[in-house]
């Protein structure tokens, strides 16, 4: 059971109260200049790390804010939690 404290409403929430949003830090390419390869990489390719992973979560049962988390994908240890406009280490 992954437990994360939301950096906005500061409540401790279990994964059942949150929504997972995939990898963080994916930059949307400029659609006017992106090649087909760059665009499909943006759509489908992810780092898929075995280890520390930067990702997005939403406090969906609480304050509704999206924020960022660094989580170890094997042990599920949550190493860092920051507001969306802050940087993960």
């Amino acid at each position, binding site marked *: *059971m*992954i*437990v994360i404290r939301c950096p906005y409403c500061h409540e401790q929430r279990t994964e059942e109260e949150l*929504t997972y*949003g995939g990898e963080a830090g994916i930059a*949307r390419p400029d*659609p*006017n200049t*992106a090649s*087909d390869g760059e*665009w*499909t990489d*943006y*759509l489908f390719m992810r780092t898929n790390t075995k280890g520390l992973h930067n990702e*997005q979560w*939403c406090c*969906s049962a609480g304050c*509704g*804010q*999206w924020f960022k988390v660094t989580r170890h994908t*094997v*042990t*599920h*240890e949550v190493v860092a939690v920051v507001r*969306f*406009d802050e940087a993960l280490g």
Partner: protein
Amino acid sequence: MSHGYRLPVGGRIDRTRTISFTFNGSVLKGHPGDTLASALIANGVNIIGRSFKYHRPRGFYGAGVEDPNSMLAVRDRYAYEPALRAGQVHLCEGLEARSVTGWPTSGFDLAAGLQLFSGILGAGFYYKTFKWPNWALFEPLIERSTGFGRPRDTVETRVAHHRHVNCDVFIVGGGPAGLATARALIGSGLKVILADDQPQVGGSLLWEQTGIGSRAGDEWARVVAVEIAADTNMTVLNSTIVTAAYEGNHFTLLQSVRDPFGVRAEYIWKVHARQVVLATGMIDRPMVFAGNDRPGIMLSSSVRRLIREFAVAPASTLAIYTNNDSGYLTALAAQQAGINVVAVVDTREETAAVHRVAARGAGIECLFEAQITATSGYRRLTSISVCGTEGARRRIPCSSLAVSGGFTPLIHLASHRGTKPVYDSRLSAFLPGKLPADWSAVGGVAGTADLATTLADGARAARVLGNTVGISIGLPPDESVEGLSCGTVVPLWRPDHGSSAEMWVDFQNDVKVSDVEIAARENYVSVEHLKRYTTLGMGTDQGRTSNVNGLAIMAGSRGVAPEAMGTTTFRPPYVAVRMGTIANRRRGDLYKPRRLLPAHSVHEEHSAVFEDFGWERPDWYRRNGESREAAVAAEMSAVRDHVGVFDSSSLGKIEVTGPDAAEFLSRFYVSNMSTLKAGVIRYSVMAKEDGVIFDDGVVARLSEYVYLASPTSGNAESVAAWFERWRQTEWPSMRVAVSPVTSHWASIAIAGPKARALLAHLDPDFDISNAAFPHMRIREGVIAGVEARVARVSFTGELQYEISVPARYGASLMRALLLHGEIKPRPVGLEAWLRLRLEKGYLHLGSDTNGRTTPLDVGMGDLVAKRIDDFIGKRSLALSFARSDEREQLVGLLALEGALDAGARILAPGQTRPPCRTDGYVTSACFSPSVGAWIGLALIERGFARHGEVVLAYSGGSAIACRVTNPAFYDSGNARLHA
């Protein structure tokens, strides 16, 4: 006696009361404190079931949950369970138990004839045999001859509850290790929970002969339990099994709440602990030898437990087979109970046996460096054959045999957390290894077989965890500890004598040493392959008594040490948990919330037949005893010819407001919503970044800064979440707010030629003439005295208004509309509504679109081409796959004969029946009264270029000819919409 019997004195049972129960229909008696296993053995029950593959007679192997043999169907007053271990079930009045293997009875099983074929039934036999002429011929028979447990339809009164609790310290196990830790924490102020699977704490202290201080071990346990109970910060959960350990020190527990008639309730606990003490103990390991599976052969510690906890003897003659000192404890306990202990057969040298003097002093013969070479007795053990170093063989008659091949610490919960077990060569056992953070292990599970060390380790563990949180825990006063030690182990993984085809490793799944050898020969040598190829350890006991022997024998075949093999992973749950207990109250109406429309009571008044579409919505209205088809036809014609009233309150409503609302919405929809003028409505679709349609609906602009988006009912929440996610994470500087208001407004649609007249009767305070209020416009004002938003937008193809009022007025509005005496509108359900829109060729999201459908596929190519600026998904529509010739495109179908089925496959040109290529499928279909034929929509390859073509739609064995058309079947000029 050659079977079990009750000892005249001793045990923790209550001999003053008697319990009646039945086994396979026979009435038997036991006492409070008995388990089903102890009571059955006391009654002389010998064969408890048949083995999985070979249907050999099996008796009790262990007294508790570690027994691989006893699987019984059990019914108490409250529930029926198809497969429980006899040692898990506590005897209660009126209990009914049945064997689940063996036909016609476990005593006489015809399938035992399979043993004649055991030569071809070894590991992996189904890859090599039973293939000609066809495996499918043999499979049903093989299936029927295996398996455990028979389901029954029953009404249950057992109650299930869930509990959630956080604590500072969670102690798993209430034996000496757990109790010593808990006792040290009394008065610390820490919130402590201790869980133990038995009705009373004490663990092995309840049946081993021990003394702590001035008390007997079991009395010490009782006193400590009382002291713990006096500390209000400490909780003991009895009859509670910890079923799983999850990350973050979360655990699930299963507590059985019993009364004299059975398990009245089961509680699932979800515990979160800051610190964890694992004190789950260890169990005996079997010895491997030829003929080691006969009824009458049991684990040595189980024999001790039977004698001392339940006052049950396994038989009147007992032999012991051991490679460690604990076998002697059993010999002495049996001797004291008056059982004739015929011999202790010790595989080790005499000097290693620390209790030999005590044993000989009690008159027990001890044989050293001796091994069992064979046993006899098909339905019950009758003798063992022993061989010494000189080779001399001797037959010793006995009807029970206690075996101890070493110890297996119960490390399952640590394994659930992914810790790799570590082999300890001193104990010849796997220990937990590097424990998860904030865990410690004490006692048998950590490899400690000595009581004094266990008690000291428990107190020390408490002190360490106290230090971690800054609380000082004192060490307890020294107490003398008495009890025979379990001594040392010299492993004998595989005996030197006997045929490997007669040596069992996994009793539950009937896996023998010969099967392990087959796996080794065929190169399935890794521990994971060994498990899956032979099925060793795959039974419901998760290999509790078989894993280590199996991997050690494989290691021997490969010439490596057992630790080099590694282990397989234990997974939750530790014991089976009933689905009903997990489901708890979430059944029937409590399974998920039922959402009712604001006008629900009015629909009921009009005899609506409801369906669950996410909200409970009328599918049709039952009037005058009509059938569904007649009602739907009448509702459709009411809309086409008169006026119908439809509750559309579940459609999504999202207010998007702010100076940047226009720009914001333009980035989502295929149509450019920023050019929408105030008071105007536009229909469009929205895609995700891969270009696939995920919503269709209308957007209305109420004013310069206020938009109202209407996603399809199923997307009401997800579109709002989608808008909000992009706003927060991509465009946080945009001045826009997203407010979902779906349940704030009730929306009633009125559709048909008389719709304007009906609207007029509600006294709107704005001009509703056709010129002032054209199609695709929205007005805000007052109708029937309440604030309202009225949108002129049509799903049906007729003149239609959607009237939205605050939800609290929804029922009144619906009633006011339906009770209009002069116009007499008809209520219309969802089935008729969807057929009406199909006549108009409008797509229904999810039916006429699938997980690949893009805006280009539904005919919006021109709209997409016109958009110069970007919207989400637009770039993907320029990829070659989005423009491919093979894409399925949405077209209409007019059946030339017969009835059209949604889901019918469109056969490729020139094909008349499958198997053949198909070009697509029918997405929606119905009989159209307006057209007078069956119509439908379909996704067909290159559909836009094939209008006019005749295709075959194949469904249910027959093919129907259909013409591919433009989807607008009804009023293609849209005259009705603009009336």
